[in-house]
């Protein structure tokens, strides 16, 4: 099939199977920023590591220059957090702590949008 794609307006997609329903978590804003995401990121740490690894692999495929970008992220982006406003700085520090991720990687993950508007 080639674009432009012709629509198929469905009328029976709802409700989808319960297995696709997304689970809810509470983020307590009364906690210190560093503690707010602890429960969630402990549970999802491996999945976050997985997506960052895939992203780095993708960037490395662009060549040596692009690979340098990854080194920059790993080595320098950790210092980048000093420039971020509160409470976000504290929240990112907490996410790095409870997920055992490099702070630079957590910062990268949180500025994905700005990177992908290129």
């Amino acid at each position, binding site marked *: 099939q080639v674009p432009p794609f012709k629509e198929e307006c469905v009328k029976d997609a709802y409700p989808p199977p319960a297995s696709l329903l*997304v689970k809810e978590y509470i983020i307590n804003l009364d906690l210190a920023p560093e503690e707010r995401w602890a429960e969630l990121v402990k549970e*999802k740490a491996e999945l976050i590591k997985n*997506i960052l690894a895939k992203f780095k692999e*993708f960037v490395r495929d662009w060549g040596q220059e692009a690979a340098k970008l990854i080194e920059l992220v790993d080595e320098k982006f950790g210092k980048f957090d000093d420039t971020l406003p509160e409470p976000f700085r504290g929240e990112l520090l907490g996410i790095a702590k409870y997920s055992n991720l490099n702070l630079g990687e957590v910062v990268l993950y949180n500025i*994905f949008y700005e990177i*992908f508007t290129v």
Partner: protein
Amino acid sequence: CTSIVAEDPSGNLYHARNLDFGLFIGWDIRNETWEITEALKPLIVNLNFQRSGQTVFKSVNYAGYVGILTAVKPKTFTLSMDERFNKDGGFIGIIEWLLGIRTGSWMGFLTRNVMENSTSYSDARDVLSNTEMLAPAYFILGGTKSGEGCVITRDREKTIDIWEMKSAGGWYILETNYDHWTKPLFLDDRRTPANNCMRNMTQTNVSVKGIFNVLSSKPVLNKLTTYTAVMEVSTGHLETYLANCTDPCFPW
């Protein structure tokens, strides 16, 4: 992405969106899926941000991402953000930030501040329109009263356009990833199919079910879609489902 704000015949407002992400980031030949899109799905969570045990707002997030892309502040407003591509994009904003020019706001932090602190549709609209940013974006905002829905088209420095639901056709407003006054790229036209399905549905059938069906219609639903979320501002209801685009399904 595709975002819709729609009003039922009694003036009740719904806000729904598909979040598409991962184009060109690794095509899995064996499974015929996008690698990053699939890796993001298990990270999708609904979050209930609370203060003193009371809900301040609810959102759909990728775990570990602290900004906001889709959210409802019960009885106040709803918000979604669609990506806007521009050569003056976020990369320039990041470089400026690194060079010490820090007058702009990170997109996710701006939307999070709006969800936490804005107290009305008009307040949220003002902040989203008037805050300098590091990257362009489309903000889709829904209110609580009949006719309260708009798409704010943002450049990094300023608002280019605010498109009101009234002028978009009256009972709904729909945004994908293109300026509404230009034609979408013919290779990536989800706007025309989505509009056709909305018109087929008619205003009489505006509901969680009706809008979910529109967002489940291919190619509005495609292999880049990570989730579909539907929100109802009057009740603060947020319902999110992982996307499951069964073959044959368009790659974007």
